[in-house]
């Protein structure tokens, strides 16, 4: 069977075979409810605890700092709304290029008396430090800045940003779902710098959909988003999703083991890909910033991104235009808009995000396919003009 090359790992990743093997027993033979006191339940509890330890070890956090949720969106909602509910309304500052599951909860809080300030970014997607310093003067009670952006791959220096925010005295959160397995993560170091909470997600790092975590400094007081039963130290009720949590544990462990080797390999492929893109006349976004080794975000003049990804799909390459989660939305990317990219260029945006399974051969084939496709589309545009 023909199988397209999957170049959309920032949307979701294939499950690592070792993760699947670890998960399967917890579906059928070892199916207990982790809250049950009999042997089936205790076995499930041990599995959840072990996964908690694996995840903590992978990001150098303490197991008691891990709060399991159903996904990264929930973890981000839990932090922002949960912390806000424990505070008197004040200023909440979020990066302008955050994922909608940070931006939208902030908008919700605006309806509850909070002032929301979007932190500006420069043309390369990096937080504008002057704007940030100005925001800090107003002493935000909550700050959320993602470690790496899902569209551009731009990596923010969250340790430095959190450190600068220390004097302001608020809680600092970072969405790190795009980082696990792509860069080393050390929550202790981040925490010492002033990061109080961090979101991780299994399915962006070779694990299953349906499990994620909020890594949380225990000084932060949170109201739960989901009540009923008091699971996860009362921060998140509901029967634990044991198989997915077990899969998350293994995925996190493997991610930490492989990150050094993998990021080198991804970087080599990225260099190859981007030199090809430049040769074909693409504009690559955020190249001046520090970026994830797997993400390339680009546009060709006068070529619509949607059209291009549709053609590439037929050529056997799965890539994205804009972020997967909001792909239903035809508006040009809010990330590029925040970076000051003109809408007519932003509409051409295509994202390639590589993963462990990709090869240099696929990159070569992709460049060849892109050359043909772009050539044809530009030919059409020329005729139309």
């Amino acid at each position, binding site marked *: 069977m023909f199988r*397209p090359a999957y170049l*959309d790992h920032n*949307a*979701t*990743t*294939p*499950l690592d075979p070792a993760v*699947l093997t670890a998960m399967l027993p917890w*579906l*059928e033979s070892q*199916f*207990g*409810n982790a*809250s*049950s*006191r*009999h*042997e*089936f*339940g205790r076995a499930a509890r041990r599995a959840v605890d072990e996964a908690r330890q694996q995840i903590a070890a992978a990001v150098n956090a303490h197991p008691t700092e891990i709060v399991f949720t*159903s*996904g*990264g*969106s*929930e973890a981000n*909602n839990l932090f922002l709304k949960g912390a806000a509910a424990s505070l008197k309304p004040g200023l909440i500052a979020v990066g302008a290029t955050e*994922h*909608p*599951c940070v931006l*939208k*909860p902030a*908008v919700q809080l605006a309806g509850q008396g909070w002032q929301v300030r979007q932190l500006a970014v420069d043309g390369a997607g990096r937080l504008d430090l002057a704007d940030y310093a100005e925001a800090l003067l107003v002493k935000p009670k909550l700050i959320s800045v993602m470690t790496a952006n899902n569209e551009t791959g731009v990596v923010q220096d969250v340790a430095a940003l959190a450190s600068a925010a220390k004097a302001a005295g608020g809680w600092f959160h970072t969405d790190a779902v795009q980082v696990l397995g792509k860069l080393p993560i050390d929550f202790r170091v981040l925490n010492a710098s002033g990061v109080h909470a961090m979101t991780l997600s299994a*399915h962006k790092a070779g694990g*299953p*959909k*349906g499990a994620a975590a909020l890594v949380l400094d225990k000084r932060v007081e949170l109201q739960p*988003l*989901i*009540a*009923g*039963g*008091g699971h996860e130290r009362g921060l998140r*009720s*509901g*029967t*634990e999703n*044991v*198989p*997915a949590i077990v899969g998350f544990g293994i995925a996190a462990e493997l991610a930490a083991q492989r990150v050094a080797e993998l990021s080198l390999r991804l970087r080599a492929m990225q260099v190859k890909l981007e030199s090809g893109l430049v040769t074909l006349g693409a504009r690559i976004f955020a190249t001046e910033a520090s970026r994830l080794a797997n993400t390339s975000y680009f546009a060709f003049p006068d070529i619509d991104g949607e059209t291009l*990804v549709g053609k590439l799909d037929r050529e056997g*390459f*799965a890539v*994205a235009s804009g*972020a*997967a*989660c*909001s*792909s*239903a*939305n035809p508006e040009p990317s809010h990330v590029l808009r925040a970076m000051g990219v003109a809408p007519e260029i932003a509409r051409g945006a295509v994202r390639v995000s590589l993963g462990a399974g990709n090869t240099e051969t696929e990159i070569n084939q992709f460049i060849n396919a892109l050359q043909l496709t772009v050539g044809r589309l530009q030919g059409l545009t020329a005729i139309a003009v």
Partner: protein
Amino acid sequence: MKLPIYLDYSATTPVDPRVAEKMIPYLCEHFGNPASRSHSFGWVADAAVEEAREQVADLVGADPKEIVWTSGATESNNLAIKGAANFYAGTKGKHIITVKTEHKAVLDTVRELERQGFEATYLDVQENGLLDIEVFKAAIRPDTVLASVMFVNNEVGVIQPIAELGEICREKGVIFHVDAAQATGKVDIDLSKLKVDLMSFCAHKTYGPKGIGALYVRRKPRIRLEAQMHGGGHERGFRSGTLPTHQIVGMGECFRLAKEEMAEENKRVGALRDRLLKGLQDMEETFVNGDLEHRVAHNLNISFAYVEGESMIMAIKDLAVSSGSACTSASLEPSYVLRALGRNDELAHSSIRFSIGRFTTQEEIDYAINLLKAKVGKLRELSPLWEMFKDGIDLSTVQWAAH
């Protein structure tokens, strides 16, 4: 026969092998994000999600457009109750009605709303665990915004009169939410007839995977909700977050199987339950908790008087059962459900919930009966209270001295 014997199907069920088989391809080759619109990985995942939505809707007589995916029944209950209460508080009022025997997911959610300025009425149930319709009717006020009543109780298995309650709510303009986590595959649910506005489901009590549930949100007349999780706008804005395709496929398949096999299965499981009941009934001083007629086929909840609950659990380790509901068994409080049925602390503590399921055999039931008879007999022999009871002393009149 393998020990321990699993008789705790109301806490959770194994994933049916047929369900697991359907799930695995969506963990492996079809791993796409259903929200990815630009390639076949996404389309394949999205098609599977929509097929499962139809399967879920099909079991309960709903339109697929009325099904919203969540992470489980607890989230569904939170979304339904907080979402509707907050959306309609301004127009309908801030009074909520629920029942003392509801699951914590409902009770804790209503408590949270109370802290935010809502008023709540927690209705008593009758001794048989059933809600008295007149009591329910009397509790409705002009400012009642929402009522939440579970379909099937998780501890005693009684089936509440949802159809009648729905009629009353519709007539009075009260939004009616039903937690049906324990009901799917156990009782017929037809939302085209029931006047229910919101209904919570989950997969892992019906031979599907953990981590997936759904909320039914009626379209005619349309019920609106304030979303509890914001982000990419998945599930028509009701619930943002990447959809876990394999779990959704599992929920669809387990609901499809439930529809197909429910009638047969309830007969078989009901016969095993009756066998268990018959085997235990001739023991002295054992009491069935909850109505036996309006009850799901797989549940039996019995109090063994003059037996201390914890010693009982230790003595019958070969049986994986619950004393009190799974979600609260970390605490040593007597079951609040049994207390609401009027059982005293001692009887509540000495109660065991047996929940039988698809993979239970007659051999296992017979083993359980023999084990219980032997162990309860032995524990009672050691019990001074049992001795006093046998001597004809009415323990309720005894004055206990503190030492």
